[in-house]
Each structure stands twice: as C-alpha cells, then as structure tokens.
C-alpha cells in the first residue's frame, strides 16, 4: 500500500488553492473534531476577516435512533451571521457524505448562506448521498474494512492514519 500523504502538507496546498477564492463575503466553518483542526490551519493561513465557526453535528445525525446521542457533543459556535455569506465548510475525510448532509441542515438553522462549498483534507470512495467536495486535498484509496482518520499529536501535528474498523 502506498504511504499516506502528509496532512500538514495537504493543509498548506489546500490553503494555497483556496487563497484566490477568498472574498469579502467568505467565511469558514469547521466540523468537529477533525474538520475543526483542518479549518484552524486553513483559517490562519488565509487571514480571513470573519472569525472561524465550529459545528458539532451530533443533534443532526441520521443514526440517532440506532446509536443514540454522541457521548461528548461539543457546542456549535458560529460567531458571525451566516446569512448572505459564501461559506467554506471544512471536514477532514469525505466518505459517505452523511456528516456533510447533517452539517448543511444545521447551517440552515443559523440562516440562509449565499453558498456553501465543501473543503476536505481527503476524500475516499463510498458516497451514500449525492455530495461532492469542491476542494479536496487528496484522493485516497481505502481498502474494505479500513477507516481513514485524521489524528492530532500532543504537539498539535496532524497526520492521516488507516485503522481497522472494529
């Protein structure tokens, strides 16, 4: 299996690709937890006007009836008015698309954005919904029974890892 790309390098490349698209109505929102880490990197690199927003989609998940509420939901914080904004929604790995579906639903409970673009560090096969990323750092093959995850070390360094699904 090929080595996984370096997550920090992917963040830097994503920021460079996004830079020309940032305008006065742009704002960024990271999805807890991995997406928030990536968004922190991008937001700092891009010097955006609006502060960074965070979403925890626990209250919008579609598997609540099967799995119940996540144990440690974070508080969603969007410190700007989303109405009329061109939102960059940031996640770590795009897989089934269900997290993004939930995030979009939640965003509309804050207001009506002008647009939403999806930015992900990495995408893999397995979409279950008609959702795609406008900006993806990398496309990674993931074997059946494996999961691609973003980790953050104690020093704050991001890395992609493959792990077996329990």
């Amino acid at each position: 299996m090929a080595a996984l790309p370096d997550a920090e390098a992917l963040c830097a490349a994503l920021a460079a690709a996004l830079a020309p698209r940032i305008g006065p109505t742009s704002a960024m929102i990271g999805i807890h937890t991995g997406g928030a880490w990536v968004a922190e990197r991008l937001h700092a690199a891009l010097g955006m006007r609006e502060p960074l927003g965070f979403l925890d989609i626990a209250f919008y998940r579609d598997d609540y009836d099967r799995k119940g509420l996540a144990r440690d939901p974070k508080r969603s914080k969007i410190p700007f008015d989303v109405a009329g904004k061109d939102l960059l929604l940031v996640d770590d790995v795009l897989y089934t698309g269900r997290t993004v579906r939930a995030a979009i639903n939640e965003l509309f409970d804050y207001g009506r954005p002008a647009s939403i673009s999806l930015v992900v560090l990495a995408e893999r096969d397995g979409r279950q919904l008609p959702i795609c990323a406008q900006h993806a750092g990398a496309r990674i093959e993931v074997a059946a029974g494996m999961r691609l995850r973003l980790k953050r070390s104690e020093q704050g360094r991001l890395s992609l890892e493959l792990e077996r699904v329990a």
Partner: protein
Amino acid sequence: MLRNPQLNAKGELQHLLSVEGLPRELLVQILDTAESFAGVTERDIKKVPLLRGKSVFNLFFEGSTRTRTTFEIAAKRLSADVINLNVAVSSTSKGESLLDTVANLSAMQADIFVVRHGSSGAPYLIARHVKPHEHVINAGDGRHAHPTQGLLDLFTIRHYKKDFSRLTVAVVGDVLHSRVARSLIHGLTTLGAPEVRVIGPQTLIPAGAAALGVRVCHSMKEGLKDADVVVMLRLQNERMSGTLLPSAQEFNKHYGLTADKLALAKADAIVMHPGPMNRGVEIDSNVADGPHSVILPQVTFGIAVRMAVMSMVAGGG
C-alpha cells in the same frame, strides 16, 4: 447486585428517576450535553430534529406550571410532539389506576413519559411496567426526588463557578419536604463538592441529613459564612401540617435570606431558588432581584438540561 433501574445493559441512561445512583461520568455527560444544547437555545431557530416523530407525554398528577412548561419547551425544541395531560382532574378522578393510565397512553404510542406525582416512587413503578422503547423522566415525586431540577441546579453552579472541587454550598430552609434539596445534595456529593451545608430549624431538617454527607447548621450566621453558593428552598406551605413552624414571619426572621445575611457569604456568591418564590418569607425581594441572584438563568438553563436528558434517554435501539 440489582441493576440500576435508570440504566440499560450498556450503562446508558434509560430512564431518569433520581440523581441518586447516577455515576459521576453520567452526571458529567448530562451536564456537557446540556452545555451543547444551551448553544442551540441561543440561536434564532432554537430547534433541532433529534426527536422528530416521537411523542412526549407530560403526565402531571400534581400541579406545576414552570416544570411542565420547561419540559414542553424542551421537547418542542427537540422536534417532538408534546401531549399535556392534566391527569389530576381526568382519569384519576374517575378511578383509573396509575398503570392503566400509562397503558392507555402507551397504546397511543408514547415514547417518553414525563411524570410528576405526589407519591414518592410513582415514576419507578411506571418505569418497571413500560415497554423497552418507552422512557420515564421523573419530574418530581412526593418528597423523594426532582432530578431535572437537581441537574439544572448543578448546571447553574458549574456555569458560574466552573469547578465543584473547592465549593461551599449552603442549602437553606425546608429541607425536610424538599425533593429539590435531596436531588441537589446527591449530585453535589457525587461531583465532589467538599462542603455542603443544610441550614434550617431542627423541625425542617430530616433526621438522617448528616448521613447524606452534609453539615447541619441551625443558624444562618454559621451556615452562610464564606459560602460560594446559596440555594434557598421554598417554604412549602401546602405540605406543612402547621406544627413545624410558629409562623412564616418567624421563619423569615431567622432563615429568610436578606442582604445582611447574604453579606456573610463570599463576595461573589450566587443565590439560587427553584421557584416559585415566597418573597418576604424565605427570600427578600432585594436579594431575589439583586446582583447575586441567578434565579432566572436557572429557568433558562432548565430547558437545555431537559433537552439533554430527553435526547439521552430516547436515543439508540
């Protein structure tokens, strides 16, 4: 060992019957979840889709406006359908038994029963008889427990004081009749508050109070000294047989919270009250409306706490 009737086989919250017996991690999980819901209640659209298609039955065999209303608001913000039953004046008066009432509502496809009952233990009885997908939340039973009030008190204390490990909490007044006090005291000791004091006349302090791990004080001077949190309890006129207290005025003189007595507590102390208040009896107006009072924030936090509890019991298979 008998399984805790509030928890399922995986140790998750199945019913909320009492704060007593809830492990510390679960208490913290409820408070953390409520913190996330507090964010929802600050938005323009204060609603999330979690309980869409579920039915919450408010079953109040005993009157209560605030508790019933905040449960109703919480359920609606979770997108549940809410049915309010004033059972005290309907089925029961026609002689229907508690379990028959519940069985009928179950046939109407209930998911959550929020139960207030004058008899201690009634929610336990219901919890033993409901179907696996039905959940019971105790909204106050007799003198026994009022867990969501206890939890919202804990949430309020944590909100203002951050950490329980160095707090002195004084609970003042009619501890004997107070299910609120009982739930709060269990929660405080579970979360590690080092000093919980109960203050009141001998006749209104339960005989076994010291066994709960609290310090019993019979004077405000002793009990309020350097307190971080002062919780005033309502003097429950309707529960008093008349022999426990000479008069409300006498009670106010010794145990009513006045600005002078509050000055004994820490300068940044917060004052709480579960409501409804008897102004001029257990608490003076200038304290209830003063800068230390967090009585109205308690009501707001109560919504987020009840959202947390409902969404935690009703999720999963």
